[in-house]
C-alpha cells in the first residue's frame, strides 16, 4: 500500500505528463493544418503533370526508343526500396506501420531471389530497418534540419535516386509512405516510381492532336526525371500531413489516458486518507473507553 505522500507525488507527475501531451497535441494540430495546406497546394501541379505524362507515355511508351525511366531496364532483379518515415517519434504507429510494410516487401522480394537495396528518408525508419537489413542499406537522407519541406528537398532525393539508376545500381524503385486519409487513418502505401507508371484514365481525353515543341521524345526525356521529383515531393507532403495527424491522435489518446489515471489515483488517495482518519478516530475512541 503506497503512502499518502507517494500517491500525491504520483498524481502530480501524471498531471505534468498530461500537460505535456496536451501541448504536443495542440502543436501537432497547428502543424497538421499547415502540412495539409502544403499538400493541397501541391496537388494541382501533380495532377496536371500526371495528366500530361500519361498522354505522352501512351503515345511514346510503346515504341522501342522509349526512355528507360518509362520502359524499365527490361529486368526486375535489383529492387530499390525508398522508405520515407518521420524524423521524430511519439506519433503512434506511424513509423512502425511504414517500416512494417517495407519489411514485408523486402522479405517477399528476397524470398523471390531478388536483390534488395534500401534508401531511407527520415531517422525513425532507418533505426527500425537497420537492425534487420543493415547490410542492404545504400544510403540515408537526413531531413532533420529542414524546417519547411520544399520542392528542393524532393529534387535532391530524386537526383540521388536518378544518379543511382543511371549508374545501373537498380532496376525498379518503390517508394513507401503513408497516405493521409484523415486524422485517425493514415494508410501505409507502396508506390512504384521507376519505371514510371501512369494511370491511363488520367490522360487528357479531349486533347486530340497536339503540337510538340521540341519533339515528343525530347519532352518526355526532359519531363520523366521531373516526374520522379514530383512524385517524391507529393509523397513527402502526404507523409508530413500523416505524421502530424498520427501524432495528434496519439497525443489525444495519451492525454485522455493520463486524465483517467489521475481520476483513479485521486480516488485511491482519498480512500487512503479516509482510512487514516478512521483509524485515528478508532484509536481515540478506544482509548477514551479504556479510561
Amino acid at each position: 500500500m503506497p503512502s499518502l505522500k507517494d500517491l500525491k507525488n504520483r498524481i502530480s507527475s501524471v498531471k505534468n505528463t498530461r500537460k505535456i501531451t496536451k501541448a504536443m497535441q495542440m502543436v501537432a494540430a497547428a502543424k497538421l493544418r499547415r502540412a495539409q495546406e502544403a499538400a493541397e497546394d501541391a496537388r494541382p501541379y501533380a495532377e496536371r503533370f500526371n495528366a500530361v505524362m500519361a498522354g505522352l507515355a501512351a503515345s511514346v511508351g510503346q515504341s522501342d526508343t522509349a526512355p528507360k525511366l518509362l520502359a524499365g531496364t527490361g529486368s526486375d532483379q535489383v529492387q530499390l526500396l525508398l522508405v520515407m518515415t518521420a524524423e521524430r517519434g511519439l506519433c503512434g504507429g506511424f513509423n512502425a506501420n511504414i517500416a512494417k510494410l517495407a519489411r514485408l516487401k523486402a522479405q517477399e522480394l528476397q524470398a523471390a531471389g531478388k536483390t534488395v537495396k534500401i534508401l531511407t528518408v527520415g531517422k525513425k525508419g532507418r533505426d527500425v530497418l537497420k537492425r534487420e537489413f543493415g547490410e542492404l542499406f545504400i544510403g540515408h537522407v537526413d531531413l532533420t534540419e529542414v524546417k519547411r519541406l520544399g520542392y528542393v528537398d524532393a529534387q535532391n532525393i530524386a537526383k540521388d535516386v536518378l544518379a543511382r539508376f543511371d549508374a545501373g545500381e537498380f532496376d525498379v524503385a518503390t517508394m513507401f509512405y503513408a497516405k493521409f486519409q484523415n486524422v485517425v487513418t493514415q494508410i501505409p502505401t507502396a508506390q512504384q516510381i521507376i519505371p514510371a507508371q501512369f494511370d491511363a484514365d488520367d490522360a487528357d481525353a479531349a486533347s486530340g492532336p497536339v503540337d510538340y515543341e521540341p519533339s515528343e521524345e525530347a519532352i518526355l526525356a526532359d519531363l520523366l526525371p521531373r516526374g520522379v521529383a514530383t512524385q517524391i515531393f507529393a509523397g513527402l507532403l502526404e507523409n508530413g500531413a500523416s505524421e502530424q495527424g498520427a501524432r495528434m491522435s496519439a497525443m489525444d489518446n495519451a492525454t485522455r489516458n493520463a486524465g483517467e489515471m489521475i481520476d483513479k489515483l485521486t480516488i485511491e488517495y482519498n480512500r487512503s486518507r479516509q482510512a487514516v482518519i478512521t483509524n485515528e478516530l478508532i484509536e481515540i475512541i478506544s482509548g477514551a473507553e479504556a479510561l
Partner: protein
Amino acid sequence: MADTMQFDLVSPERSLASLQASAVQIPGSEGDMTAMPLHAPTLTTLRPGILKVDAPEGSSEYLVTGGFAQITAEGLSVLAERAIPMDEMTRAHMDELIEEARAMYKTAKDDDSEHGLVEDAAKLLSDMEALGTHMSL
C-alpha cells in the same frame, strides 16, 4: 471569337495564378511564343525566362526557370519548376539562381558526363545570365 482564355500558373509548391488572360508570352525552349485564345494545342518545354501575361485587368510578369506549358483549346497551363512574380524579384534572388546554374555547369563539366548534359548546363547558365541583363539588375 473568345477574347480571353483560362490561364493557370502552378509551381510544385503552390498555385500562383489562375485567371482569364487575353495573351500570354511564353519563353519556350525553342523560342518565345505568344499564346492567344484558340491557339492550336501545343506542348512545349520552357527555358529560364520571363512569362508575360496580358489580362483585361492588367498585365503581370513572372520569372520561370523551366518546366513546361500546355496549350489546349480551353486555355493554357504553365507548370513551372520555379516561378517568382517579377515585383518580388531582387538582385539577390537572381544572383542565387545564376550561382546555382554555374554550380550545375561546373559539376557537369567536372565529372565528364555525357556531352549533352554539359551543353544543357551551359545553355541554362547563359539563359540565366541573359535574363539578368534583360532585367538590368
